[in-house]
């Protein structure tokens, strides 16, 4: 019973993690480009007291089942669910939503590459396209200071007119998207930025719309893919499971006290 106390504690801890993850999802219901996380659990190692088929009874018949005491549950992983969120019209020319697969590639302050689906872009003081966190979009795109109209098409061509030469359209650059073999293996750094790992594989950058990459939609922003109703239902499930586990602790505790009361 001492063991069952610890076993149920692992169950409560697992449910606690589930509530934590749901809380993070709900907190990010309005974060642009946020992908919800999902936790999954698995059973912990078993202690084999008797291996099935080894012990024989008086007649020499092998017992078909053994005794294996399980020791609870543990977190097996949190995975990001990469379904596309709702696209919302913002009428801001530098808001870009990715319709389909792919990430914007940005240069991180430490020199590495980061990846994001948050397309709420800005121009920095040098006229470069940056994310709202200030990371420069790769490949770099410079927009002249006197640009009066910026248009970004579905394939990522950035063009527009400048005040100096209003009669002709100039091309400012070409946006690229990157995709991964296993996007679930990306490491979330916070600030909507993800980083590649050995599990995700290397990025394969290409123009939007090619090679299975999604296309860009100007004047739109991708909302979070968290669905509040689902999260609340999961919250109720987790809470009930937590309660049930705490009842099991009470029961084990009571059995222990019964055992102690055998000796008076």
């Amino acid at each position, binding site marked *: *019973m001492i*063991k*069952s*106390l610890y076993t*149920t504690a*692992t*169950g*409560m801890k*697992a*449910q606690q993690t*589930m509530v934590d993850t749901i809380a993070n999802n709900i907190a990010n219901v309005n974060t642009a480009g946020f992908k919800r996380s999902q936790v*999954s*659990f*698995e*059973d912990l*190692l*078993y202690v*084999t007291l008797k*291996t*099935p*088929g080894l012990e024989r009874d008086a007649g020499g018949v092998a*017992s*078909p*089942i*053994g*005794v*294996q*005491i*399980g020791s*609870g*549950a543990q977190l*097996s*992983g949190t*995975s990001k*669910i990469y*379904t596309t969120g709702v696209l919302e019209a913002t009428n801001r020319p530098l808001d870009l939503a990715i319709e*389909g*697969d792919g990430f914007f590639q940005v240069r991180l302050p430490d020199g590495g590459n980061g990846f994001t689906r948050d397309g709420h872009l800005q121009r920095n003081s040098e006229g470069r396209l940056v994310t709202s966190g200030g990371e420069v979009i790769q490949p770099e795109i410079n927009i002249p200071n006197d640009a009066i109209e910026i248009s970004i098409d579905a394939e990522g061509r950035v063009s527009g007119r400048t005040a100096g030469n209003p009669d002709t359209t100039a091309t400012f650059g070409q946006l690229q998207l990157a*995709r991964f*073999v*296993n996007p679930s*293996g990306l490491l979330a750094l916070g600030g909507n930025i993800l980083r590649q790992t050995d*599990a995700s*594989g290397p990025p394969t950058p290409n123009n939007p719309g090619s090679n*299975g990459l999604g296309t860009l939609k100007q004047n739109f922003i991708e909302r979070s893919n968290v669905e509040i109703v689902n999260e609340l239902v999961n919250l109720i*499930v987790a809470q*009930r*499971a937590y309660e*049930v*586990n705490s*009842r*099991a602790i009470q*029961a*084990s505790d*009571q*059995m222990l006290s*019964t*055992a102690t*009361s055998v000796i*008076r």
Partner: protein
Amino acid sequence: MTTYAEAALVSSLNYLSQSQQAIAHNLANISSTAFKRRQPIAEESPSRFHGMLREQLPTVKYREAADWSIGNLVPTGERNHVALESQDFFRVRDGEGNLFFTRSGELQVDAQGYLTDESGFHYLDNAGADLQVRAEGDSSTGFSVTPGGEIVDADTGVSTGRTLGVFRVGSREALQPAGRGRFVDTAKQDVVVVPTTAIRQGNVEASNVQTVSEMVNMLVVQRSFQATATILRNVGQLQSSFVSALAR
């Protein structure tokens, strides 16, 4: 001196506390993917108590078996989730070549394009080889799994010619849980590949633990434990009054 009554009651208390452990384990795994609940079984064990007359008297022994009923299939809409609607298994292989059975279908594709579980163990195809769903470096969006296990490129709808293997063993009772939703076959039985139409993509098999029945089981165990402990105490009192009556 241990009397038979005491030996039998103590074996019963042991059985009950181990049952409580199994129930605790089940409740802890309410949310574990494709978890199969552990079922305590009481068994009469004939040869545990030798009294003065060398008689063999029964005591209770604890045994445990898996309840193989299928958990609810929960739709997640996620491409990487598959669930089995039949009573069979997927197989996974670890880095050292050890084989495991599993019903959990939370698939990942590693950087080399192999289909793996969350610990990086490779799923097997219907020929028993590691299942590679795409070549290394190829980064097509994803794959679809047909009910028969065929892996289809989600972009083009063209079959990759590879099939997720579904396996069956003769006696599931010999499967021993290895944790993380996996089972090992201790009896080394022959494994057959079964043609199937029971694979459901976009679903996850939930744990088959029923909260209500576990709570009821727990109540039964708790009350039985109290009753047994009370009788054990009374037996002790009976003996001590015997001794004091004789000593007078």
